[in-house]
């Protein structure tokens, strides 16, 4: 069974809440975005402050929670957007 290394980035309030803006998680393949989010909620101190279904981008592209992940992907977790 292969392992996916996913670089997870936290932005704005999420980075503030968890006191960090980056963490790498390893997941058994195959995995989708929501698997990585669940892992973050489980393993990070204060991880439960993250929502179960945050806005997410993979490799700088907005995606849905069912998006498959590949080894080396960057997963970004976004609080509600506030641009403009």
């Amino acid at each position, binding site marked *: 069974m292969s392992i996916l290394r996913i670089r997870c980035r936290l932005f704005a*309030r999420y980075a503030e*809440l968890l006191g960090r803006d980056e963490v790498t998680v390893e997941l058994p393949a195959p995995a989708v975005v929501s698997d990585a989010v669940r892992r973050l909620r489980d393993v990070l101190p204060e991880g439960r402050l993250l929502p179960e279904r945050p806005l997410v981008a993979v490799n*700088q592209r907005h995606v849905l929670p069912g998006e498959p992940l590949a080894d080396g992907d960057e997963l970004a977790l976004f609080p509600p957007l*506030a641009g403009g």
Partner: protein
Amino acid sequence: MPYCTTSVIDLAALIDAVAGPECGGIATFVGTVRCGEDDGPVRHIEYSGYEEMIEAEFAGIAAEARARWPRTRTAARHRIGIVLLGEASIAVVVAAPHRAEALDACRFMIEEAKRRLPVWKKEVLQGGEAVWRDNTGRRVPSGGGPRDPD
């Protein structure tokens, strides 16, 4: 040309960048930091963003606009960092041969920017307290507070 800037947005420069003799109309939208009656006393706003992705998203939005309204020329900026009351946080400029294309594409770009740009804002109140504010108008205290809705 980068879409993110930490400097004051120069609308005239954006207009100059898209204007041309083949263009008959230029539509612009500028979003400014406001302190309206339903707002608390805001001192300034701190915008932060995922800058590489803002560049990619704004370039995508502009490309989509030009695909849908092929004769348009577009320019846009989002400011990052501290923005004072009354200053512009975002500007979108569209030039086109006819006004409907310019107006439609300008509106498309600002709506998509609001929807897609990975940007966040923290309001710093007169007393120094800071609150995160999302695009629904909801305020969340900085550093804690309730979880986002799932």
